[in-house]
């Protein structure tokens, strides 16, 4: 199938998927036996029927459920995600504020985990059952199993408080103002604005959280790369390559790794998707206000428009990630291109 047809079909498939997700998110958040009035009005205001009635009318909570849903979808079609009950600010504006922070952190995290994961995975497959293999497997086990908040706190305690080689929580030092908003990612915005010291500070602030965030997926990627490499290394074409007299490095990287990457790419795609959908604990400990914290706060205060907005956004992130992974298959495996 031609690539553009394939793409068009995939994009069209997103529409029913998003409608389905909006419906599920809407039904679940409305079936919780708790009232957004209580969550968002103060103790006394919630006891005043007049204020409660005005609140319900303002947010459309006095309408039947299907009317609320249809109103939401109608507004959505016009690009209006609604207004947050909690902060009274437009949801689109809030997502534009919090998503870039998460993209920045997740991207740094995935870079760390891909680089570390693939290198470790290859090393441990090539030197299978040697001491280095055991060491790498041990480290990756820690990465996969250590609770992220524990890693984060230990990291802060040692690298920030004791050794003072990374800065503390936050995306920038408190005294450094944020760069002018362009993309919302401080590293990019500070570069665009030519604020080098801000850029440096933003990068420094990214180091520890991305290491912590990358630890889990790098453990996973190491393990998958290792097992996939082991399988490939025992294939006959590897022996063919060697018997042709190719250098060992060339054999392993060009013939081995490239063929072993298919399952790894799947894991990377999924990991990146889950990092992008927010890491509440990491974001909380590092005071990194991203989508994870936003989703958590929205759920905690039954902020329906925010819950809907964030659910749709995360759905889109996963759909797009899956699409990218499929396109990578296409590139990695020539058979797909011909078939």
């Amino acid at each position, binding site marked *: 199938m031609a690539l553009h047809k394939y793409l068009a079909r995939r994009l069209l498939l997103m529409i029913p998927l998003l409608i389905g997700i909006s419906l599920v998110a809407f039904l679940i958040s409305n079936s919780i036996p708790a009232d957004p009035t209580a969550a968002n009005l103060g103790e006394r*205001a919630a006891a005043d029927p007049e204020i409660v009635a005005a609140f319900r009318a303002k947010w459309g909570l006095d309408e039947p459920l299907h009317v609320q849903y249809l109103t939401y979808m109608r507004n959505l079609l016009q690009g209006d995600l609604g207004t947050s009950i909690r902060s009274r600010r437009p949801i689109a504006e809030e997502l534009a504020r919090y998503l870039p922070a998460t993209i920045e952190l997740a991207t740094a995290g995935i870079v760390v985990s891909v680089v570390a994961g693939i290198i470790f995975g290859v090393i441990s497959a090539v030197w299978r059952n040697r001491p280095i293999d055991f060491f790498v497997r041990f480290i990756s086990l820690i990465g996969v199993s250590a609770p992220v908040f524990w890693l984060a706190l230990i990291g*802060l305690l040692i690298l*920030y408080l004791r050794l003072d080689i990374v*800065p503390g*929580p936050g995306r920038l030092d408190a005294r450094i103002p*944020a760069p002018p908003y362009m993309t919302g990612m401080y590293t990019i915005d500070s570069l665009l604005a030519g604020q080098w010291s801000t850029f440096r500070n933003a990068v420094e602030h990214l180091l520890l959280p991305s290491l912590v965030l990358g630890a889990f997926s790098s453990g996973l990627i190491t393990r998958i790369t290792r097992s996939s490499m082991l399988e490939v290394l025992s294939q006959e074409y590897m022996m063919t390559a060697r018997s042709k007299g190719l250098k060992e490095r060339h054999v392993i990287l060009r013939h081995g790794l490239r063929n072993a990457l298919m399952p790894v790419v799947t894991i990377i795609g999924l990991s990146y998707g889950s990092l992008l959908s927010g890491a509440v604990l990491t974001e909380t400990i590092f*005071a990194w206000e991203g989508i994870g914290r936003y989703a958590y706060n929205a759920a905690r205060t039954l902020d329906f428009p925010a819950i809907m907005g964030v659910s749709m956004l995360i759905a889109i992130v996963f759909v797009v990630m899956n699409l990218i992974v499929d396109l990578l298959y296409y590139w990695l495996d020539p058979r797909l291109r011909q078939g």
Partner: protein
Amino acid sequence: MRRIVVLLIALSLGMVGMGGVIAQEEQVLVVGLSEDYHSLDPSRAYEPGGSLVHHSVYDTLVTFPSDSVSEIIPNLAESWDISEDGMVYTFTLRDDVTFSNGDPLTAEDVVFSFNRMKNLKDNPSFLADTIASVEAPDDLTVVLTLTQPDAAILAKLIFDAFSILNADVVREQGGTDAEDAAETDTAEDWLMNNSAGTGPYMVANYEPTVQTVLVRNPNYWGEPAFFDRIIIQNLPETSTQKLALEAGDIDIAMDVIADQVASFEANPDIEVFSTQSDTLIWLLMNADPEIGGPVSDPLVQRAIRYALNYEELRFLSGEGANNPASMVPIGFAGALDPSEGFAQDLDKARALLEEAGYADGFTIDLEYPDFNYIGTEFGIVAQKVQADLAQIGITANLVPQEFQVSLDLYRNGEQGFSLWLWNPDYYDTLDYVEFLPSGVVGNRTNWTDENADSAILELRDAVKTELDPAVRAELFGEIQRWLQEYGPYAPLFQPGVHFAYRSDLQGFAYNGQWRVDLTALSR
């Protein structure tokens, strides 16, 4: 296009350069706070964290000393008269007060601010329920007329929501004090990143969930504050706040929990301030037999009060916690001395149960919101209550609930036996009348004018309109003693509240209303 980019880079480099020069001489205070506010419009103020900002940026007519809430002192109003019937308060404003833009303060600003707050119908608007009208007969006189005598009105006026804003400026930004302000006022957006107050600081920038930056007000009418800039940085996790304070990146940690106190005290660079909070943790025993079952019986309620080990309960909450004697927290005028409180007496408790006809005890659900409030884990407190009650034959089944779910049941009066907390809405003991029949909490306990004893109804009605402080204290004392005997509640404890700050910081003081006065700090 390229030229614009070059220009932008040059401009921003220039700005960084300038920033660097200022930063060298500038005195900056950095506060670590788990940010709980969503608005910087003082007339919508409600969350405790917001007070750090409002109290620095705005003034009120009257105020408290920085370290207590027991005395009301002048602020923007230099004096006031109260009519004999307690219905009319006449305030005389200071004549030397200016707003941050240089405009002089007038009585008209007070009228606008109060009416706007009331008509916004937001969370704090109920505080204006007893206000019938506000008038400005001349530039320096404000006349407040009430709907009924309200001994708590001056204490209410100290809350951030009664902050005085520059009426002209707020009107220009879409503000209104008209009756339909709830629908038509649009000044909130502007007030998020600007301010129109008479306080020592101005809002420079508010980046929600990241930081709030205040700068010194050049036109402040009083003594200028020490710090040029205050940065309130959002650090949602207490352990992160601790690390940032130890590293010296923040000067104050606002959300210290009891477990951290010992480690702070061992650090010479850090001072700790601990006291009991104004939060009351208590047991609700529904007065409606259909809902409360056995605990609706006053004898059983009393037996439960005698069955609890208050000291051990307090211990669960950690350092700084304290046991109030009744349903008025320690620190409020007229609160009984803690020594008048309950001591565990299991024999008495068993005898009372027998008298009530439950010699063999009974089984009941104990509902509670399953969360941690300022370091107090509700699940652990509930387990301790369960263990204490088991000693007199009562089997309490623990029913943890998700917070919002539990809150709904509690507010609808559907919980029979539950564990809750109450924070003061304003700093006058009158707030605790809500625990009496037909009050906010009374209703949730289904304890109303219909089923309550006439003795407590008379006390309640008397204290609501009494203005003489001595008589009020006496009445509050009688009410608390009555509740100790017959009330549908058991007061458990007030958790501790803790702050830690760098030792080089001077002038730290705490009161429950605004917690820490940032404007009084220096280095």
